[in-house]
């Protein structure tokens, strides 16, 4: 890529706004749109409580300059449109637009809003908000730490070396084998020549020497086979070891990453990185690299031999080589397009099939089999057409290409043939020469594919190392506290947002004492589950503090903290296995007796007994053989088994009928003694035993109190209860 030149207009507004701000900037950003989405140059600087803006108007006569006092503004907002973004602010009750831009400055503007709000509230906003590639200055993709545009391929391949190092001995031995194989390959034509010249076309051949040559040829052949065998065994063994090692490192790294690092990549992508990308690396180390080495050795040594034998002839032979390379590049580009299309068509077909099979129930219920059949036929037809076209093209190109590449050989036959006829060359020399020509042409054909393979590998290496290099955002304290917790939890001035500009939780102050049962109440999407995620330290707070027994949560060992919590989540997840293995998952050293007790408490025991295989019942993929309520009860048993200090229930009983729910609630109430329980429930009756109810609204705590208190104060909780009562009344009267 050619280097991008910054347009002079952009530089001019940047400089102008900088001088307006007095040469200092707490933060600066560019933008490139105006009111009605006309493209312009604009730049902004935040400095010392002011925002400075310079916009080059589209008529370019005079610039618009704005200076805004941040304290005068009530609120700054980041507006996400479609294909463009804007910053708006409210000043004395009125909305204004500050600036707008297309998406390339979106992240910078999100941060700008965050910084301006922070400046307004007198908070300092530290930390690196986004990363820029030091080479091209482009912002890196979210979740990416390397710029795929600027990766240095040589550097990348060198990085593979440490992983191959433990196998250096084996690999160098295998490489030695490669050299031997190549040497034998090169030497055999010499023997052939000897055989023909000294024994086959001579009048009185010496039988003794003749047998010797044949035996030598056989011996070399045998040695070659043995070397190939040894070399392949070594490569396969060490490469698989390298692969396992790489996958292990990658997997461990992914588990270490915080949930933020994991969720911003799709699980499909992570799976690809662990399976396909590492396999690409292995393939490169095992097959491409040694083959390249071997073929390269042969080409070079044979070319040298040929040159010493007869340099004029060699030049003639080599004549079609550049043509061949050009031709292959052209063909490659062409077929690449074809194969790309075929690959897409195949992938489309795969997606379609996956979709239909996993949604078979819906298809059958809505009776759309015919429609799906047609869809499948069209896609399959498209694939068939594409691949037919590809094969036809190949079949047309390949024979022709082979012929052109053969021209060199024909030329050789002609020249040598005429030399033999005139007697200046022997039949043996002819055979030797032709064998060498074949030896050179083979690898050349193969090498035409090399650039593509290297490119694929480079991408895979980059992706694998990107994860390995990633720093976990939630670092363990240097001396993490491992001790047991008591169960006192305290939020103080806590702020949190999944992205940097929008807070999901704002100014949360909440104290939960050991032994309390706290109910979190509010509509969906107000931040209840987020609060729980923070307590489990799946994420770290953006600002403020969260204390456990008066000590900051970040001081605790993550692992030690989580093992003292029992969690039942909104979406119960069961692993592929038996009921028993799913319950015991929480505490693998439990006895059968304990597991049964936990199941009894969770009211799961009865239904488990109804299964013919009891606790050994196989739950199937994600537990699909069980009903929603059954899965939830298993999840509750799993949480109880741990005998947790803090029990977290996120809509844990939502999929149960009221009666079962009551049974479990009663069991849990017995449990809650001396333990902190935090429960989210939409069915408010579930929380009637709560010692404290916390009502969330728009990311903030609106009310705190007991059921009776809150009913008396007639706030949001009262309204929610009333609405639910009315619902149940309606149901009863019907």
């Amino acid at each position, binding site marked *: *890529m050619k280097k991008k030149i910054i347009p002079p207009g952009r530089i001019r507004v940047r400089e102008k706004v900088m001088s307006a701000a007095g040469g200092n900037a707490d933060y600066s950003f560019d933008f490139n*749109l105006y*009111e*009605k*989405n006309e*493209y312009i140059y604009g730049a902004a600087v935040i400095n010392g409580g002011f925002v400075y803006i310079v916009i080059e108007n589209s008529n370019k006569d005079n610039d618009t300059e704005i200076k805004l006092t941040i304290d005068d503004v009530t609120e700054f907002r980041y507006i996400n*449109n*479609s*294909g*463009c973004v804007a910053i708006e602010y409210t000043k004395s009750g*009125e*909305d*204004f*637009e500050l600036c*707008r831009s*297309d*998406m*390339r400055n*979106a992240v910078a503007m999100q941060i700008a809003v965050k910084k301006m709000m922070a400046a307004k509230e007198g908070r300092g906003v530290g930390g690196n908000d986004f990363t820029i590639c030091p080479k091209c200055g482009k*912002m890196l*993709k979210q979740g990416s730490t390397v710029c*795929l*545009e600027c*990766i240095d391929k040589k550097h990348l391949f060198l990085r593979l070396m440490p992983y191959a190092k433990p196998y250096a001995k084996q690999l160098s031995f295998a490489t030695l084998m490669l050299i031997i194989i190549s040497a034998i390959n090169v030497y055999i034509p010499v023997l052939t020549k000897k055989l023909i010249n000294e024994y086959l076309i001579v009048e009185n051949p010496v039988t003794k020497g003749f047998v010797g040559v044949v035996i030598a040829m056989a011996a070399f052949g045998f040695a070659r086979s043995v070397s190939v065998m040894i070399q392949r065994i070594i490569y396969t063994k060490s490469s698989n070891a390298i692969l396992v090692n790489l996958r292990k490192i990658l997997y461990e790294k992914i588990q270490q990453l915080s949930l933020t690092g994991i969720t911003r990549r799709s699980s499909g992508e992570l799976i690809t990185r662990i399976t396909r990308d590492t396999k690409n690396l292995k393939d490169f180390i095992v097959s491409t690299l040694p083959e390249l080495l071997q073929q390269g050795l042969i080409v070079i040594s044979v070319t040298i031999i040929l040159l010493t034998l007869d340099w004029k002839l060699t030049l003639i032979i080599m004549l079609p080589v550049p043509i061949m390379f050009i031709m292959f590049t052209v063909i490659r580009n062409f077929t690449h*397009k074809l194969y*790309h*299309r075929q690959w*897409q068509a195949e992938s489309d077909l795969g997606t379609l099939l996956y979709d239909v099979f996993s949604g078979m129930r819906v298809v059958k219920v809505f009776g759309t089999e015919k429609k799906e059949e047609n869809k499948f036929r069209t896609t399959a037809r498209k694939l068939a057409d594409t691949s037919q076209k590809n094969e036809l093209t190949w079949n047309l190109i390949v024979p022709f290409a082979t012929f052109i590449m053969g021209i060199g050989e024909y030329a050789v036959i002609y020249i040598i043939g005429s030399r033999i006829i005139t007697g200046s060359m022997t039949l043996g020399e002819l055979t030797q020469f032709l064998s060498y020509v074949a030896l050179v042409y083979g690898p050349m054909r193969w090498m035409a594919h090399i650039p593509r393979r290297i*490119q694929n590998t*480079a*991408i895979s290496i980059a992706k694998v190392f990107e994860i390995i290099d990633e720093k976990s955002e939630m670092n363990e304290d240097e001396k993490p506290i491992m001790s047991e917790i008591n169960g006192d939890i305290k939020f103080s001035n806590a702020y949190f947002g999944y992205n940097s500009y929008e807070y999901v939780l704002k100014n949360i102050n909440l104290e939960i004492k050991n032994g309390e049962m706290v109910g979190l109440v509010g509509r969906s999407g107000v931040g209840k589950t987020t609060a729980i995620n923070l307590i489990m330290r799946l994420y770290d707070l953006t600002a403020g503090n969260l204390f456990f027994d008066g000590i900051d949560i970040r001081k605790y060992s993550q692992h030690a903290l989580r093992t003292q919590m029992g969690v039942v989540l909104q979406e119960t997840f069961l692993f592929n296995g038996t009921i028993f293995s799913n319950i015991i998952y929480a505490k693998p050293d439990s006895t059968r007796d304990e597991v049964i007790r936990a199941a009894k408490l969770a009211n799961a025991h009865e239904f488990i007994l109804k299964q013919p295989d009891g606790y050994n019942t196989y739950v199937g993929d994600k537990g699909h053989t069980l009903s929603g309520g059954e899965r939830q009860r298993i999840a509750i048993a799993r949480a109880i088994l741990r005998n947790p200090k803090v029990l977290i229930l996120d809509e844990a009983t939502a999929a149960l009928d009221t009666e079962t729910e009551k049974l479990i609630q009663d069991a849990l109430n017995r449990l809650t003694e001396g333990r902190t329980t935090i429960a989210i429930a939409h069915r408010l009756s579930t929380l009637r035993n709560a010692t404290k109810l916390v009502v969330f609204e728009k990311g903030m705590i609106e009310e705190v109190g007991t059921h009776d208190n809150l009913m008396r104060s007639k706030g*949001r909780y009262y*309204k*929610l209860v*009333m*609405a639910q009562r009315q619902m149940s009344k309606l149901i009863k009267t019907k």
Partner: protein
Amino acid sequence: MKNFLDLAELKYFTSDNAKMYKTKNGFAAMKAFMPPIKKDDLAEGQDNTPDWQDLGRVYFHRMFPFDAPDEFISVLDKDGNEYGIIRNITDFSGEDADIINEFLARKYLCPEITKVISLKEKLGYSYWEVETDKGKMSFSMHDTYRNIARVSDTRLVLTDVDGNRFGIKDVLALDSKSYRKIELYL
């Protein structure tokens, strides 16, 4: 028998029951003849007689940005609660229609590609240099095939690495050189 779907009521705005205007600072706003807006969804016992009222600043949102950009436009408040729906912009005329169109154009930025000058693919990224109705532009895309939405047989919408959108109204209407460059992704 009454259709099940009749139970859901859609509030449509037309020039008869709605009037657009601009706020002092140039934002779209609306006056409408409709029942009073509930401030809180849990509040009860309010008078529901419709009347003309000033909704203040409103936000437009296309329900079918690809299939029907000029139809079914939701009119929302600041928090994303829906006041009602504009079934078709043609239900309004004059200044009203102008304001709707202006604010849709402000919200949805999608330059239309008229010519592909160059298109290169390297390491899983593709680099585009194009001419659009808003001038010459260059952008790069990752995972190109999957980031091109095939809205219809001939209409494409491209999303670049930053999230910018670019449209191609009709691929068949492109000149043959441009067409051949993008053919691979069709």
